């Protein structure tokens, strides 16, 4: 099995704060991540694609992948305030876990158009909030 991974970068701000919890509970749960004005990260996003090597020596066309990620994710997330600018996070806390889930849903929705069957499969989404905090699914 061969897996191709492309790495992307997007700076974005967010705030971790749940409306269902009190201010004290938010502070206890999220610590500094619940500071009221938010804070930012240079997120690193890795998108992995799996499949056999085709007759052109590739698992997937990189340009197609780049276009899909730009259209489905980066265009909305880059230089954005995730809580305010990305609709999915108006009611969902933009933890890295939830950001990975949203990214996967967006890419999965565009995948059949970009890579019609029996093309390569979307394998893993990995998100580095910082160099030390990484979430993948």
């Amino acid at each position, binding site marked *: *099995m*061969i897996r191709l991974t492309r790495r992307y970068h997007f700076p974005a701000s967010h705030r971790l704060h749940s409306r269902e919890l009190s201010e004290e509970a938010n502070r206890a749960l999220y610590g500094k991540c619940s500071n009221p004005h938010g804070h930012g990260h240079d997120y690193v996003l890795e998108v992995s694609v799996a499949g056999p*090597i085709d007759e*052109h*020596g*590739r698992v997937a066309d990189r340009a197609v992948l780049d276009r899909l990620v730009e259209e489905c994710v980066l265009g909305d997330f880059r230089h954005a305030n995730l809580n305010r600018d990305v609709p999915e996070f108006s009611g969902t806390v933009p933890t890295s876990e939830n950001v990975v889930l949203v990214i996967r849903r967006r890419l999965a929705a565009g995948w059949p158009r970009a890579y019609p069957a029996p093309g390569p499969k979307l394998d893993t989404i990995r998100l580095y909030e910082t160099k030390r905090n990484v979430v993948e699914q």
Partner: protein
Amino acid sequence: MLITRREEFSASHVCLNPALGPEQNRALYGADANPHGHGHNYVVEVTIEGDPDPVSGMVFDLKRLKDFIRREVIEPFDHRFLNREVAPFDRVVPTTENVAREIWRRLEPPLAQAAARLHRVRLYETEDLYVDCFGDRS
């Protein structure tokens, strides 16, 4: 448990299919099809799977792994033009996928003879693009 050794080699390559015309190659491979080639500082990570030996505490001696990688990969690939100097890339397009797979092919047999189970070859063409080869496992 997985253990990994990282090595580097600098090499040039061209990605194109000689059976296709320049426009088709450009459409398929983009700038990678520039006919005189271009280069990368490739990074290869070789991962072995196993359990630590109760006496040595090692899954596999990383010094020996380094020697295997240097002999089978770095010496033949480093500072070479892959298409012209490294088989099979005279007839197989040296995409990252094909180079990773060739590295697996070169490493797996000698490592298996040394009782090391090769788990993954990861090849970075750039910091933002890498390929994982897991052999024949799906």
